[in-house]
């Protein structure tokens, strides 16, 4: 996982609950995860999961809820940082359809060993989108949060329903997105 995600996670906690909460949560992490994270570097996924577990314990919320909230928080900041990918869109739907074919393609070009998730979609109706998330990291709550964050960014509410999940034995996580007409 890239360091920028760790930095955003820290920002998420500090902005929401204060620096003290983050530091206390950070101290709960295994010692190997207590390193200074910098954006361009790559770190083990286990570090992120360890920090999230520590944060959720510190804040007294579930891990999935914490991750989803983090995804929602992270999207507008990522969009600002990598505005080239979002600036030509006015609505989350056409943007979300480019995630795998354009954004992840570019990510793979820049970071050769990166493993972005596989995101596929079906477009059954103008106000709907079905999306599938497949990743060995099983971070579907993070994906859900990012989708919700895209709604916040474009100021278009998205009614998001997860219809199946790999954690419940499905082959992929599936989401149904409903946009206002």
């Amino acid at each position: 996982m890239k360091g920028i995600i760790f930095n955003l996670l820290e920002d998420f906690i500090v902005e929401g609950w204060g620096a003290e909460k983050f530091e206390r949560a950070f101290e709960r992490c295994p010692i190997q995860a207590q390193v200074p994270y910098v954006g361009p570097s790559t770190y083990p996924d286990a570090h992120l999961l360890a920090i999230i577990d520590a944060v959720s314990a510190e804040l007294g919320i579930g891990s999935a809820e914490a991750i989803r909230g983090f995804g929602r928080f992270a999207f507008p900041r990522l969009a600002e940082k990598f505005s080239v990918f979002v600036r030509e869109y006015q609505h989350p739907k056409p943007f979300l359809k480019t995630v795998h074919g354009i954004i992840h393609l570019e990510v793979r070009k820049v970071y050769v060993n990166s493993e972005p998730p596989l995101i596929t979609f079906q477009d059954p109706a103008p106000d709907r989108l079905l999306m599938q998330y497949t990743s060995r990291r099983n971070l579907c709550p993070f994906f859900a949060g990012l989708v919700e964050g895209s709604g916040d960014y474009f100021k278009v509410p998205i009614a998001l329903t997860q219809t199946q999940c790999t954690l419940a034995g499905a082959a992929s996580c599936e989401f149904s997105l409903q946009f206002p007409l």
Partner: protein
Amino acid sequence: MNDHEELRLLKRRLERAEQRVKILDSMLEERTREGYLASAQLRAASVSLAELFRAVPGAIIVIGSDGLVEAVNGETLRLLGCEEGDLIGSAQQKIFGDAWSPSQNVNSDRVLRVERDVYTRGGQRVPVLLSATMMDTGQHHSIVCVAVDLTERKKLEAELLHAHKLESIGRLAAGVAHEINTPIQFISDSVRFARDAIGDLAPVYLLYREIRESPAADLMQRLAELDAIEAKADVAFLFEQLPGALGRAMDGLQQVANIVRATKDFAYPTTRERRPANINKALQSTLTIGKREYADIADIELSLGDLPLVPCHIGELNQVFLNLVINAAHAIHDRRHGGRGCIAVSTQVVGSHVVIAIGDDGDGIPDSIRASIFNPFFTTKEQGRGSGQGLAIARSVVVERHGGILDFDTGPERGTTFFVRIPLSYPRQSSAPASRSTRPKAMS
């Protein structure tokens, strides 16, 4: 939280922030160094590429996604007799003509390799071997074409073909001489008989003239003399035999004329353009002059269908037919069970092609060499019996010169049959570019 605890946490954050700065500083330094090295490598690669672009002995033409020429190298300018400003920014048709373009035919990163023509500034056609592929830099799509001038190779191929033809004619000369010698023998015998007969008839005729000029004197005695001379000359026999002898001489002369015509047909000069030709007649001519190659080994089973005139280079196809007939004869000669064989030659129209089949009843082509038989200089024959060029030239003539197909069916029980498939019509040569407008643009 007390002040001490708050201070501890702040100190911890500060330490981590300092460590981050150090790491980022180190990364920045590393990236700067890498960037410098990459930049230097890029400059070196760019110089190498520019040098390669300039020095490569092939015409390099880069065509943009809009179909306009983006870049050309010096070899392109030399080949087409153009200035850079004539080509940069102009439509690809200016180089490749109106009937074919790289943009329409290159659609993946697979390298397209094809023989095409390009056009000089004066509209003159130049045959080239064109390799073209899509180049995707991430931001920009273009097609890179490398064209190698085939003019010299075409000339050499024509010379090789001609040399092979001369070699065949030389090889066939002995057979042709033999074929001509047989009728010459009996023409000679017949003419000699006619000459002797005229010699024998001369005294009869002379005495007859004497009797006609002085009929009164000793007529009965002179007539008796005439009878005696007639009997001696066996005039009745001569009159009975002479027409036959002269007829045989005429037949012989006809045979000689046929052989000479067949030789002339076989040696039909190579032309640049295809011309309508009678394939059946060509096959018969080839079988006539090649008779000595197979006559002692095999009978010919000929089955010629009704064929239209076919646009072709008939002199070159004659060469193909002869090569296949000779191969058939060799296959029969080499077969395990020996004996006299059969070479089946047939023609027919199948769909849009004329199919000429030349088959033998030999042992077939072994699996192990089937893939190699069309390779130049591949031969299983002993030295002096085959150079290994026959089938290679046959394929070049059929496939490259006629856009046809040369394939075969073979098996140990059924021998080998080669199928020459020549299109009844052929696509028009790509036309010279109609428009030669340019839109000059500086080469970046």
